């Protein structure tokens, strides 16, 4: 009997699938999603901002273990030990092409397509001994990885004909305002400068500079134990501070921006007035209420929430719907209550590892 389902066929669902394959055969897992290609959405967004390198490091891959990392694979591909030397100093970042190739390889080897079913799940209903997935069957263990609930456009720019979201396909006008202060915004500053544009950066706060989305100690129990011990309001405040827009430090960013500023082609501005084009590098909508599946789940089951986050157990499961016989877990952005960097590959692995542990410990799986 198939007892395990993954709802969502994006990167978080795909990463979870790779972990599940450590203990289960493809016929024991059902993946329900709207696209068989796990990087379809991610590839479009990366192409839109002309991303060439991953922010993640060697372990930013979909395999369940951190070793072997992408750096080791790059050694063979590039015929050079440089990736290994870079990775011991945390300077190695796989290229987007390397990452996509890795996903394609894993897709084939893990037999992802054998588990995939084209389906749009709108409702997850708790039933005796599991969850009924919108007519697609009843499963004892379900991991929901719905992805981001849409792009975030500032309200005042929604109807502005000059405005485009960074993750939508676009070219660059001769004067460009970039709204935002995260990695996408920083990438767009450089893209627009490379295209010969004059660039104005509009932002509410000075960007935080850090190598990864969150400080590294929040990727392990060192920081997470304290985080999990915080009360509701404290945890909300901590999440807000951890999830502020940021981009990595380094000369690759600072030197071109410094040169452009000296030439008068890059400046920080107060408003978007005067530019031919406004690029909104403002990320994604935040909150379960923007995702119909999650919004319905919360409403139907009366789940605890906190300002847009569904309250989760430290292992990324929904406490009210998880017991010894069944598991409901969230992965990807909706899992931030358990793991602040949930919308990264590392975050997807975190939820997946614990989901698999739950399945293994279930006597009736």
């Amino acid at each position, binding site marked *: 009997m198939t007892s395990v389902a993954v709802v969502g066929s994006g990167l978080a669902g795909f990463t979870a699938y790779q972990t599940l394959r450590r203990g289960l055969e493809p016929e024991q897992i059902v993946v329900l999603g709207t696209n068989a290609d796990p990087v379809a959405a991610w590839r479009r967004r990366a192409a839109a901002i002309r991303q060439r390198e991953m922010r993640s490091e060697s*372990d930013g891959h979909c395999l369940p273990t*951190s070793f072997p990392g992408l750096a080791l694979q790059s050694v063979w591909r590039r015929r050079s030990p440089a990736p290994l030397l870079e990775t*011991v*100093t945390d300077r190695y970042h796989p290229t987007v092409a390397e990452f996509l190739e890795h996903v394609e390889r894993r897709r084939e080897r893990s037999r992802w397509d054998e588990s995939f079913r084209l389906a749009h799940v709108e409702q997850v209903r708790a039933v005796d001994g599991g969850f009924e997935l919108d007519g697609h069957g009843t499963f004892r263990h379900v991991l929901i990885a719905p992805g981001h609930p849409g792009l975030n456009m500032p309200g005042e720019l929604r109807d502005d004909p000059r405005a485009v979201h960074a993750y939508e396909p676009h070219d660059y006008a001769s004067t460009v305002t970039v709204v935002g202060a995260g990695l996408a915004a920083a990438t767009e500053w450089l893209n627009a400068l490379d295209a010969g544009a004059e660039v104005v950066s509009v932002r509410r706060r000075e960007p935080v500079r850090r190598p990864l989305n969150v400080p590294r*100690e929040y*990727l*392990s*129990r*060192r920081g997470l134990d304290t985080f999990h011990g915080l009360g509701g309001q404290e945890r909300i405040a901590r999440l807000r501070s951890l999830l502020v827009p940021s981009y990595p430090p380094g000369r690759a960013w600072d030197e071109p921006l410094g040169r452009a500023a000296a030439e008068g082609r890059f400046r920080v501005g107060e408003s978007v007035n005067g530019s031919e084009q406004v690029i909104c590098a403002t990320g994604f909508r935040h909150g379960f209420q923007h995702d119909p599946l999650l919004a319905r789940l919360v409403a139907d089951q009366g789940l605890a929430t906190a300002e847009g986050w569904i309250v989760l157990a430290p292992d990324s499961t929904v406490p009210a719907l998880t017991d010894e016989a069944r598991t409901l877990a969230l992965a990807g952005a909706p899992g931030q209550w358990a793991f602040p960097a949930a919308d990264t590959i590392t975050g997807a692995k*975190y939820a997946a590892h614990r989901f698999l542990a739950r399945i293994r410990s279930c006597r009736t799986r």
Partner: protein
Amino acid sequence: MSYTLTGRLHSRLTALLPVLLAALALSGTLHRWWPVELVALMAAVGVALDLQVWHRLLPYQPAWTMVPLGAVELALLMAIVVGFGLQVPLGPALALYGAGWGVAVVLALAGFPLLRLTYAEDGGELGRLGPVAAIAIGLALLGSAATYYARKPPVVHLAAGVHRGPLVITRREVLQGEPGAVVRGGIVVRHDNVEIRDVTVVGGSNGITVDGVHGTVLDGVSISGAKLDGIHVRTAGIVIRNCTIDMLGNPLGQGIDISFNMGMGMSMVDGCTIVGGMQGITTHSSMTEIVHNRVSRTSAQAISVAEMSMGTAMDNQIQDAVGVGLSCDDQSMCMFEHNTVVDTRDASGGGDRSARGFGLLASFGSEADVWDNELSANPVPIGTVTNSLIRRTRTTGW
């Protein structure tokens, strides 16, 4: 990786487990405790640094820090080894530490993540394996300590005063002489692994006789009035340290005579003072290291490596020897380095060509490699007789 404190300890101790097993095997093979002592020290230094320094200093630890952290831990380890005077050979100790460090790196970067899916997320914690490894290491070290103490030979204290000899030792023991303890009539060692410390021996056929046994240690013994040899060793492995031998008035005896121990491993004579006798230190068909000794007033050779022996003589001081200072004789292979030989005297009487007061002599088909010896005020500083060879090199040809 952002280690939790528990994760640091789990990872360190589990990585140490294979090294400890190797050290136990090495100790068993070598019949020496230093590998286990070293691993115990590695564990102690590492855990102390984890608790007091690394955890506070490094909320996140990039992979490259394993190199400087390993170097700091090695420096601290060696400081303790040197500071406490532990008997640990430098080269093998560095090799063991290096192997342990390499195992830890490989396990931290590859082994543990493969073994445990959540290794990185758990901050290096290994679940049940961590405490099991800690307990295993604790038990192994406790077991080693217990074995060490159980195997320690009994210590027999020889009270101050004169004891009638010959004293024959027929069991494994440490004979510890109290200040003023004297054995008159000699000591005979007839059992393996006997250690004699701080005992004065007067008279006897030989001062101390060691025959056909392994692992004898003579430390701080003082010998005088022996009729034949001061220390007489046959077919036995021995370490002689810090001895004093007075052979004055005995023109035919040897201060120390180590013979026929070629199959017993390397013997050592270190830090002894010998006065008088026909030969100060002599070896026959033996492998011996003779270092830091002072030999004077001998009547034939001060130090003699003879009769197909292989031996090294280093940093010895020889004075007033009649005939020869340093001798490599009778098809032996010798390395003489950093020795000082002064004031030898000619005893040839115009006849024996090999007793012309050589500072250093190779004779009767022997080969001597020599380096940086100080030979002064000797009738013949250096020479060969009968098909022998002297090479000036600091590396032995054997």
